[in-house]
């Protein structure tokens, strides 16, 4: 964080290494948000949108009224939701990778998203339907999924081998996905209710959805700030962290709780979206080096950049219908996955 070591020149260097890419990213994010407001699947084209946004059109024609509605009521909330979801997934990915000490750890790959999706399907089948219930249920499911994979990682030192851990996660995701499908087949009502949600998308999300997850996000942010320093010490190994006066187990549990909070919240409103948590920390490390604190800071703008860009693509490619966001992130993320695996030595975190 900014109050990092007072180490003379290197400290300034380091901060610059964070600030410069950060500013670039913020700029890019701003542009993307604008693009997200003006580009869409519907009839309201970019030019109309720009005109509506910047030059208050004279006279309330029907067309401009429609454009206003589309931008403020549909695309605006959608962009805000994208911001929140992207930041949540990006930070969750960075945290999970730090905890698992594994550059392949990713909420989607490790079955965390699948866990929350399954939990929601189960809750719906059991009769729940309230939107607020959905958030906490999704978070519980995420926590369970996370705990499952990390517990599995403890068996036979599986966690030492990043690749096998991911395999375990993929298996768990597949199993939970199949169980979710099974549940939905058993209950047609639940299926209709969440089918659009299960594929992962930002379409039609409202500000009220965002309000429902805001408390979780704030809580997660607070915890993250408190554990960032111990986490960076943990990267040097458990013994070193203990030697520096930290409590690795407590830090790890808190980090997992944060991951569950974030992923649960993001999944609750946007559905399971894989690979964001993989791509974002990967890019952040490429930009600013391996320190987890810098990765976390950069994940804040990078996550939304990835999600909003993917969302824009999802709106455009199959116009006039829309594609699910998960498809785009998978197309983006799978090459990154392969790249990480291919690198000669898997970097240990």
């Amino acid at each position, binding site marked *: 964080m900014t109050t990092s070591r007072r180490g003379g020149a290197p400290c300034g260097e380091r901060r610059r290494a964070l600030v410069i890419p950060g500013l670039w990213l913020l700029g890019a994010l701003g542009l993307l948000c604008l693009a997200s407001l003006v580009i869409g699947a519907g009839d309201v084209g970019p030019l109309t949108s720009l005109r509506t946004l910047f030059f208050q059109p004279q006279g309330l024609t029907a067309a401009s009224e429609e454009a206003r509605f589309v931008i403020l009521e549909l695309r605006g909330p959608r962009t805000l939701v994208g911001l929140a979801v992207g930041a949540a997934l990006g930070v969750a990915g960075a945290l999970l990778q730090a905890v698992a000490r594994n550059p392949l750890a990713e909420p989607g790959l490790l079955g965390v998203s699948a866990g929350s999706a399954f939990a929601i399907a189960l809750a719906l089948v059991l009769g729940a339907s309230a939107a607020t219930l959905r958030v906490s249920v999704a978070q519980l499911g995420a926590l369970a999924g996370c705990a499952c994979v990390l517990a599995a990682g403890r068996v036979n030192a599986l966690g030492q081998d990043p690749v096998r851990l*991911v395999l375990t996660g993929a298996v768990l995701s597949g199993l939970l996905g199949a169980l979710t499908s099974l549940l939905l087949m058993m209950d047609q009502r639940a299926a209709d209710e969440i089918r659009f949600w299960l594929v992962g998308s930002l379409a039609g999300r409202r500000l009220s959805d965002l309000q429902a997850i805001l408390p979780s996000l704030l809580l997660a942010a607070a915890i993250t700030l408190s554990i960032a320093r111990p986490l960076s010490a943990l990267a040097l190994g458990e013994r070193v962290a203990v030697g520096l006066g930290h409590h690795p187990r407590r830090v790890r549990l808190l980090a997992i709780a944060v991951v569950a909070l974030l992923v649960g919240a993001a999944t609750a409103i946007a559905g399971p979206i894989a690979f964001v948590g993989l791509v974002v920390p990967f890019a952040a490390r490429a930009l600013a080096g391996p320190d987890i604190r810098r990765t976390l800071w950069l994940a804040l703008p990078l996550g939304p950049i990835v999600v909003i860009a993917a969302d824009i693509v999802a709106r455009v490619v199959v116009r006039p219908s829309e594609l699910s966001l998960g498809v785009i992130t998978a197309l983006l993320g799978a090459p990154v996955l392969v790249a990480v695996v291919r690198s000669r030595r898997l970097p240990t975190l």
Partner: protein
Amino acid sequence: MNASSPDSISNLRGLGDTGSPAATHRHVPVVRPPAGYWRLALPITGKDGAILIDRRALAANLGLIVALLALSGLSLCLGSVTLAPLETVRALLGQGDAMDAFLVHELRLPRLAAGIATGAAFALSGCLMQTLAGNRLATPGIIGIDNGATAFAVASVVGMGMSLAPPPLALAGAATATALTFGLAGGVGTRGYRFIVAGIGVGAVFGALTQLMLARVDIDTANAAYPWTMGSLNARDPASLWALAGALSIGLVISRYIAQALNVLRFSDSVAAGLGIRVRCCRRGALMLSVTLTALAVAVAGPVGMVALIGPELARHVSSPRGVPLMGSALAGALVMVGADLAGRLMLAPLEIPVGIVTAVIGGPLLLWILLRPSRRTC
């Protein structure tokens, strides 16, 4: 002076004699087969002509065949309309009630045939892939081949408006996915689990492409393709089934032929090479066979990749540990497929659960167990 003293040699002189090829060539009139085998002398190929039959494997295969027959019978009897065994037999023979005959001949029998053929093909290709990769988790479904075949097959629906999943496109897709996975991982032998994760990545891309294409077609076509993308025996098409049956019978013959080489592939590469196996050639052959079978099976039933894992695993449990259970895997795969299809039809009747979901629910825990069991060797 020589490094070895005279006495150290003289101590070992007798030993050397037994080891020498020319020594003590006494003719043993009766050849005793190794423990656990029957030796079947073949008069046609001279006095040394003989094949060894693994008794345990034989018993296991016979057991699997009996189980498969029993389950097939059940599968013909049970369903939305339950037939008594006798009625089923009569319907099979073309006698009895016309409605029953239609039900058995036109609906249940083709479905059963598709189940047996796809199950056997998936499991055989899984066993081949596991053996050539030296890893029990390396099945075509996991390394993305199923998804590749599915994506290309779906492309045929979307792009060309042809019938659902023609085998050639599935083959092209499977080959593409295989080439990508192996190319990206840099070969199979050395990188262990890495190539599996590369395969997961490739599979994710093809899965996303499938979704993308399904999103572009009208809702009716998408709905028609949906159960098939989950893996189901509903959407089988006779031409694909015949193609699969042909490939499967050729595949079983070939796999019988390469079984000995595959047995040696379970050792490390250098051991296998030292035993006179052309390792690379053998691997490539097994890979091609595996990919072909997977693609053709996907063309019939969609990606039911888990059978490729469950079948060989089951076969390994019941069959002899001495060899690669190729035949056993095929039988066990057919058994699993028919069983899963039957369960899917009965569990939530009148609703039908796609067989892909049933096998995924069974196969997931199995995979986890393989990953988490006390670490021994992986092959």
